[in-house]
């Protein structure tokens, strides 16, 4: 790796970790929602480094586009009950720090103990061929998960509409007619 590539990698890592920290730590939740954007873009940058242009586009469209917009919509619709002045953490604040820190330590120890033999230099891959083969694979070997995901998306959409509609307003409209 050239020094430029190392600098780019460090920059991307710093952006991703910092914005993830901001998402969980910032008191104003609207700001936390906006911090999701650099986080998703940073993770997408890692997909790009690992030569997965298609997954980067998907990350941009689905996470940085759809998921963030839905999160911001929900935050703004429930805005009157969230006061940025009051604390946004519950009583488990200290326990949460301890739990996540010990989890991270455990993972790091496990990684260093058992991953040593696995780190080999990756062979270069052709990203155009990856996208083409991914499309073929999704419609051949993996056509069942592919179709199941579409069924899941449809049912999630119907469920979201059913849960989010307001029965009271609809009843008032019916009695008004």
């Amino acid at each position, binding site marked *: 790796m050239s020094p430029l590539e190392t600098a780019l990698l460090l920059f991307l890592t710093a952006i991703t*970790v910092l914005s993830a920290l901001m998402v*969980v730590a910032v008191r104003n939740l609207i700001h936390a929602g906006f911090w999701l954007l650099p986080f998703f873009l940073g993770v997408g940058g*890692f997909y790009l480094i690992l030569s997965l242009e298609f997954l980067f586009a998907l990350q941009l469209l689905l996470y940085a586009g759809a998921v963030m917009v839905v999160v911001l919509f929900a935050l703004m619709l429930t805005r009157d009950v969230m006061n940025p002045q009051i604390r946004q953490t*519950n*009583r488990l604040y200290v326990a949460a720090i301890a739990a996540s820190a010990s989890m*991270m330590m455990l993972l790091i120890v496990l990684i260093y103990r058992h991953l040593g033999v696995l780190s080999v230099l990756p062979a270069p891959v052709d990203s155009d061929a990856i996208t083409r083969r991914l499309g073929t694979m999704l419609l051949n070997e993996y056509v069942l998960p592919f179709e199941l995901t579409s069924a899941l998306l449809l049912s999630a959409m119907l469920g979201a509409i059913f849960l989010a509609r307001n029965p009271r307003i609809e009843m008032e409209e019916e009695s008004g007619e």
Partner: protein
Amino acid sequence: MNLNGLPLHFFVLLSAVLFAIGLYGLISRRNAIAVLMSIEIVMNAANLNFVAFWRYLHPQSLEGVVFVLVTITVAAAEVAVGMAVVLSIYRTLHTVNVDEVAQMRG
């Protein structure tokens, strides 16, 4: 990008750090929407792991990438349903704080 010299450890450690950050938010946040945002961080950490292991260990087969595709779709569905549930709770109880919604506590 030329990955020579960059060990798999880098991606796995980064993913562990992101997972721990998401776990912290998951436990400590009061607002249900903020909890969902932390879940997104955890899911992204898992996706990064899938992709890194695929790239370093099995670059010839694409199973890891298919996994990530399915995970991203499930995450999108999860966010849609989660937000609908949060809005429904907000309408009936006028709060979105998970420590105040204790109607089902035994």
